[in-house]
């Protein structure tokens, strides 16, 4: 299993480094969206609920771009079939793809969060960051599990570009809600409390449920 996951991760890394199709696109999309919000709201700074909402909605749509491209290289020249013919545990692909998507999200956030702080965020990022990191990590885990599941389902259909976002969005909405509610206190100007424990727990449970669902369904999705 470890050898298979390692081989898959190495392949994912090489393909992304050669094509630069996912992460730069996601990052550019996020920064552009912050610029759009900056001018559309006609505000230089936002905080609290509004800041959390803008951040999570932007991250959600940027993540959709990565989810949509997660299996593209595998589908293009039959690489997916090549994997299916190998005598390996197919869950290795779930794990490798989820870790890949998680890595994409981490790089995205390395770009998007400072850009958000620069373009829109009222409170200093340094104060918000410790609390925000935990919320982002929990949100990313859920996006990675759901995104991999949805991408695996969509890749074997003709309408994959449409089906991916249509399936992912409703499933990811609870993560946006949980992420925004949990991070709202840490992005507030007046009150610099920690993230909401109730919403952190909700996010954690949602991650766990979808992690288990993805594990249970993934083999089935890869079958004809």
């Amino acid at each position, binding site marked *: 299993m470890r050898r298979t996951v390692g081989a898959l991760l*190495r392949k994912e890394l090489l393909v992304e480094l050669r094509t630069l199709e996912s992460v730069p696109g996601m990052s550019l999309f996020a920064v552009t969206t912050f610029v759009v919000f900056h001018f559309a709201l006609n505000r230089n700074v936002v905080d609290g609920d509004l800041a959390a909402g803008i951040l999570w909605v932007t991250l959600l749509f940027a993540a959709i771009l990565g989810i949509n491209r997660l299996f593209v290289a595998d589908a293009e*020249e*039959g690489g997916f*079939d090549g994997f299916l013919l190998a005598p390996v545990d197919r869950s290795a692909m779930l794990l490798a793809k989820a870790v890949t998507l998680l890595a994409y999200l981490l790089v995205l956030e390395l770009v998007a969060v400072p850009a958000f702080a620069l373009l829109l965020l009222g409170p200093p990022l340094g104060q918000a960051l410790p609390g925000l990191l935990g919320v982002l990590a929990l949100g990313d885990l859920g996006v990675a599990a759901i995104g991999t599941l949805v991408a695996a389902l969509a890749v074997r259909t003709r309408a994959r570009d449409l089906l991916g976002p249509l399936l992912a969005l409703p499933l990811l909405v609870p993560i946006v809600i949980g992420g925004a509610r949990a991070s709202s206190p840490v992005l507030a100007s007046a009150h610099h409390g920690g993230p909401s424990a109730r919403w952190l727990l909700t996010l954690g449970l949602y991650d766990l449920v979808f992690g288990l669902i993805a594990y249970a369904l993934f083999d089935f999705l890869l079958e004809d």
Partner: protein
Amino acid sequence: MTACAREGALEVEGLARHYGEREALSGVSLSLEEGQTLVVFGPNGAGKTTLLRVLATLLRPHEGIVRVLGSTLPQEAWAVRGRLGLLAHEPLLYRELTARENLRFHARLHGVADRRVGELLELVAMDGRSREPLRTLSRGMVQRVAVARAVLHDPELLLLDEPHANLDPAAVELVAPLIGASSGRTRVICSHDPGGGLAEADVVLGLRAGRPALLRRAAEVDPAEIAELYR
């Protein structure tokens, strides 16, 4: 066609496969012994590729019994993967990776030593271009890498969909020890070349609109019967 003394590598009885309402295969029955070659003829859309994908465990049979290397599909598909090599229309490789990286990737999936990658790249005369991304190579070169990928794990059964597509005569000779009759493997070949295909075959299956139109030992088949399949 009945199995003889040697163990049957393939046993198919009443195989049917649909794509939605469309019947891609219906009523296909055949058997093939170890070390024999089955050549499948038929016009485009006759079901040749579908048959190959069912035997490769990539498609489920919707009706009938399919036993490959002693395992029943789809229930025991896990036991067959790794014992068969598929050379399909698509190379089953990654365009952005080099030939060497692609083969190393498959070597890891199949638990094959890296040394075998170098050996095969030499055998298909791709060692000189093995560090260039596949997207920069000609289709013939990619096909040679795909041949190396198909035999990387020394499979018992080869499923070959027009294996000489895009290969020049020199390359055809080059890959013959790996996927030709001299490889000693059981083979199923989809072909549009009546002369070449018949020369390689022990058993011939002709498909028309997903149904078997011809199933006989190669020695008993007249090339005109194969030509008739395409009319």
